[in-house]
């Protein structure tokens, strides 16, 4: 009886959460980088990963779309499920997975192509548009979602590398959004940007959560507090605490979390 109620409850969490990770271990060669992490990431929510440098938050983020596969010495163990499907299953094609789980990187990395081609890159690869008109539509919609349409609509065929840093990052977000992902992973998306560009990107993140599940790694606790609903605190490869952002910042349960957010460690 007791056991049955337990399984029932787990089913409920499964349905709510977009990604659920259980017992995730990551090794870089002999280095045990992530130790036994369990996390449930909810749909249409911004989840922030915070923690000092080298705590494994970026590594864990890169497990969620199997970007760690491109690193030879990296080994991932444990169970990560997207919509209740094991993403490390042999039948799953990491390339398809990455179309569903988009990623935005720390440094803006537009391709050396035009703004239009940057955004159209994903849709072209995955065959999302049947005609040129449809592709134009996808590009415009993505650039609008990336909150950069008004700034670039007159120069869609200018090189993407000619934009300012903040514009480049929003272009990269638009590019990631264009493949219609279900989850958007952001690895310190504002660390190379100035305060004005940062606030623009943060605003954008808040809008993106209407359609996507967003996971953001950040060094800035203020940023985590501003944009996220859920916060996970990592320390030395361990997930120390995970909960509502407000609770983590006002009433942390773990003394290590409290030390970090008050600035005593990190």
């Amino acid at each position, binding site marked *: 009886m007791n056991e049955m109620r337990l399984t029932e409850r787990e089913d409920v969490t499964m349905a709510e959460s977009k990604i659920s990770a259980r017992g995730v271990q990551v090794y870089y060669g002999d280095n045990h980088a992530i130790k036994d992490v369990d996390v449930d990431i909810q749909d249409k929510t911004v989840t922030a990963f915070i923690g000092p440098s080298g705590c494994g938050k970026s590594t864990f983020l890169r497990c969620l779309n199997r970007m760690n596969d491109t690193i030879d010495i990296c080994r991932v163990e444990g169970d990560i499920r997207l919509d209740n499907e094991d993403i490390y299953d042999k039948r799953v094609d990491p390339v398809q997975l990455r179309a569903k789980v988009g990623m935005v*990187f720390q440094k803006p990395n*537009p391709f050396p192509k035009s703004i239009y081609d940057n955004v159209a890159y994903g849709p072209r690869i995955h065959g999302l548009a049947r005609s040129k008109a449809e592709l134009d539509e996808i590009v415009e919609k993505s650039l609008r979602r990336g909150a950069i349409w008004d700034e670039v609509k007159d120069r869609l065929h200018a090189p993407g590398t000619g934009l300012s840093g903040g514009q480049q990052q929003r272009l990269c977000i638009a590019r990631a959004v264009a493949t219609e992902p279900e989850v958007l992973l952001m690895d310190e998306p504002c660390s190379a940007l100035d305060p004005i560009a940062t606030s623009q990107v943060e605003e954008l993140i808040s809008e993106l959560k209407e359609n996507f599940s967003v996971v953001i790694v950040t060094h800035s606790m203020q940023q985590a507090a501003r944009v996220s609903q859920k916060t996970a605190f990592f320390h030395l490869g361990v997930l120390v605490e995970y909960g509502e952002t407000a609770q983590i910042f006002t009433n942390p349960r773990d003394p290590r979390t409290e030390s970090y957010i008050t600035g005593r460690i990190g």
Partner: protein
Amino acid sequence: MAVGLITLIVLLIGAAGFVAGRSRALTTAGGDIRKLHSLPGYSGQAVLVFAVAPALILMAFWLVFQPLYVETRVAGMIDAADIAEGSSQNLVMSDVRRIATGLDAAIGQGVLSADDLARIHAAPDDIRSRLGEVGIAVGSDIRPGVLRAAEEYRRVTGMLRGAMSVAVIGLSLAGAAFAYTRLSPEFRARNVSETAVRMLLLLASCVAILTTAGIVLSLLFESAHFFRLYPWQDFLFNATWNPQFRGGSDLGILPLLWGTLYVSFVALLFAVPIGLMAAIYMAEYATRRVRSVVKPLIEILAGIPTIVYGLFALITVGPLLRDYFAEPMGLGNSSSSVMTAGLVMGIMLIPFVSSLSDDIINAVPQSLRDGSYGLGATKSETIRQVIVPAALPGVIGAILLAASRAIGETMIVVMGAGASAKLSVNPFEAMTTITVKIVSQLTGDTEFASPETLVAFALGLSLFVVTLGLNILALWIVRRYREQYE
């Protein structure tokens, strides 16, 4: 005094200045180097620079201008009567120079004494046999005017040489003394040394530039000479290459230019795809272990002398192509063909393309790869659509560099494609290139002033223009597109 000896003395003065300057710097600071503006070694270097640099510069200029001065002075002494029929002032002057060196050698070896020299005007015929004894052969009998000029030449040269020794060594000593007396704890020897290093580096880069300028000028002058003897319209537009040693040759560059471009094109047709794909494999797919073996192996190809490639073309590739392709297809029966040379040259060029492209592909930032993988692109999609376009300017630069190499290649063409100048599109026919013809025109036994020989310079100039154009194009492409990523 000989130039080598003067240089050695100047360097010795410099070395002594270095030691003296260093110890003086220490003395002026009372043995405490913390009081010095610069470390004692720099003071030594400053003295060394002042002792050596001005002296050597003076000597260089002296050596350039002394012969000019002597020539003009001596040339005035030769009357029109001394210049024989069919000869020229230049030829007589070269006789004067040779007699002067001959006299020096004769005195040096004891064949002639200084007294003999004084009496020599009495028997100018005698001098010819005397010079013959020391290995200087003079064509005709020596006219008294020429002999006087030679003696004057010898006297002025000897005098100036002596003056130069004094001036150079004196300047060296003066420079060393000047710098030595200036030494004090406040003396900014470090900055002097910095300037000296900068000048040295500047000089080194000037040598390369001046050499290029020199090569171009010599090509230009000789080509101008050629075009006075042979009309440039014929050279550029005549479709026949048929040099005759008796004269009346057809010296049209078209067949040679065609051969050059055809062979290079075939070579690039092999080298570019293979080299590029090898580069992509090494940069993107190969594991570190494979790469560390494969890359040096490919680069070995670049180290093989081209004559060895030529042998390979002559003995292996040529007959193979003839027996299995040209003859069955009825395209020819010559083992020397454009295809043979092009194929072998292509193999030679693979490492040029692959090695450079590999470096360039590696220089594409990892962030671009991550961005593409993060959007769900596969490895080959990423390579085709992101990495190769980003690396393209550099890759084109590499290809054009390989093209310059192909155009300038000689040995493989001689042994692979033959030496007959033809305008044909059949790749299994023997053709030849500009470089091969330069060699054969210069190694013939025609006299040097004939158009058949001088055409080599015009060919060289054309080749230079073509490769220079390619290099400029390569530089322009690389510059134009270089800042696409970053």
